[in-house]
């Protein structure tokens, strides 16, 4: 099994707070990899460092063996990492379809000149972008809402739209930040089917999730963060019975 993403000794401080400390992990191609931990453990910080939103203080992150580009997150997107957000961040005043079409930006090339002249190649690319975006809306099951403004979509559909937009960037690694947050049992079950399908289609998934049942049922391997440090990494069954993990979740000071 080949390695897709390798994080080596990643560290990140905010002021005096060590949000990530010496975090190393490897994600294999085709895996669904879970990242769990109590609130404030550093999961979202790891996502933000991974996608270039925050610069890391130390360590390295390699995607397919090469270091992730520094500087702007758009280069990370080009390199093949896409993400969704714990608190949904769509382009609220654009339609669902347009949101997904923005996701195609890194994989298309029409220039300013093309945009002004609107030549045949530009038009062909534009219609390809639209076709692909419609496919993706079908894929996540909200094609009927294509022309609604993102802010008018119901909550569950907004989550799906974020996934479609992320998929539009053709990621090698799809990072989902608490995709089941606020969903009811039916919606969560549908989400599970969706994530499973994404993996079957060849995209590796990194999943932050509080819903332990979802994580344990879906992930091949799970890493646990606590106070910015990785305290466990294993298959779900063994992580669940790991004493350090139990302590982190239940609080060590009590017993």
């Amino acid at each position, binding site marked *: 099994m080949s390695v897709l993403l390798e994080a080596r000794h990643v560290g990140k401080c905010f002021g005096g707070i060590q949000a990530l400390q010496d975090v190393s992990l490897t994600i294999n191609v085709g895996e669904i990899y879970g990242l769990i931990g109590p609130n404030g453990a550093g999961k979202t910080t790891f996502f933000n460092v991974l996608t270039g939103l925050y610069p890391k203080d130390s360590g390295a992150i390699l995607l397919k063996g090469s270091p992730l580009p520094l500087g*702007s997150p758009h280069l*990370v997107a080009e390199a093949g990492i896409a993400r969704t957000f714990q608190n949904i961040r769509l382009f609220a005043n654009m339609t669902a379809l347009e949101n997904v079409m923005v996701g195609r930006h890194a994989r298309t090339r029409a220039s300013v000149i093309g945009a002004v002249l609107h030549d045949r190649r530009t038009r062909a690319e534009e219609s390809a972008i639209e076709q692909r975006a419609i496919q993706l809306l079908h894929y996540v099951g909200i094609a009927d809402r294509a022309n609604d403004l993102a802010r008018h979509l119901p909550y569950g559909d907004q989550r799906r739209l974020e996934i479609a937009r992320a998929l*539009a960037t053709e990621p090698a690694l799809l990072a989902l930040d608490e995709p089941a947050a606020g969903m009811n049992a039916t919606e969560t079950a549908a989400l599970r089917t969706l994530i499973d399908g994404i993996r079957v289609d060849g995209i590796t998934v990194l999943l932050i999730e509080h819903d332990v049942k979802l994580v344990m049922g879906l992930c091949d391997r799970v890493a646990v963060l606590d106070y910015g440090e990785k305290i466990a990494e294993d298959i779900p069954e063994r992580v669940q019975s790991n004493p350090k993990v139990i302590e982190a979740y239940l609080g060590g000071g009590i017993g």
Partner: protein
Amino acid sequence: MEILLQQIVNGVVLGAVYALVALGYTMVYGILGLINFAHGEVVMVGALTALTAINLLVGSGLPGPVILLIGILAAAPVCLAVGYLMERIAYRPLRNAPRLAPLITAIGVSIILQYLAVLIWGRSYHAYPELLPTAPFDLFGARITPTQILILVLATLTMVGLLLLVHKTRLGRAMRATAENPGIARLMGVDTDRIVSITFMLGSVLGALAGVMVSVNYSIAHYQMGFILGLKAFTAAVLGGIGNLGGAMVGGILLGLIEALGSGYIGDLTGGVFGSNYRDVFAFFVLILVLIFRPSGLLGEKLADRA
């Protein structure tokens, strides 16, 4: 009745120019939340650059409209470069600074551009040669000159083109995504710095066009012409709802109409106490009213999201 129609024609033409300039303000504001007060000076640079090119060609025997076209084609790349450089040098380093810093920088850039223009073109008023036929056409009793017709046609084409660009192309989508949330746009693969650059350049080219149009219309250009024109266009942008392209167009036309009708009738209405020399007052009177009663502008709802 003829006077009313005449003032409406004049107002719409003037408004079309305001709208073109207002688009430059509103595009940049939409994307960066920055009011680029130096945009009026870009318009001035466009007018004077075109004038230089036009003066070189005016004895050459080329037909007037061709010379005018060459003037516009000379002004556009110069303004594009000015727009690019001012964003790159003056504003980009202040991207994350408090809002007041780029605002004051904009005023500084505007003064720098004015005095660069003084160095190149001097302080005097320059007469724009007559390049288009001056004989007006009759429009139900009102007169409309070929220049005015050209302004209306060019402004309309430009605005339609811009709307198509913003709403129907990959670039436009990236611009709107950047305007809504630059951070997320970057995560989706949009190079937002590039989008900001392009926005400045596009706005500046529109400014160049507006500068040439207004100079041809009034047959005059000088280094301070961008100041009052810029302020009025800014007023138009605020009137329509700054950050909103349609708003800049509506605001521009409305402001042109208010100014033309106001200055046309103020003499009669006040029994001659105020004359048409008070025309500039109307724009700023409108600005004050808008800021008091509808600060988000006529079509602007987006402001609330941004604040």
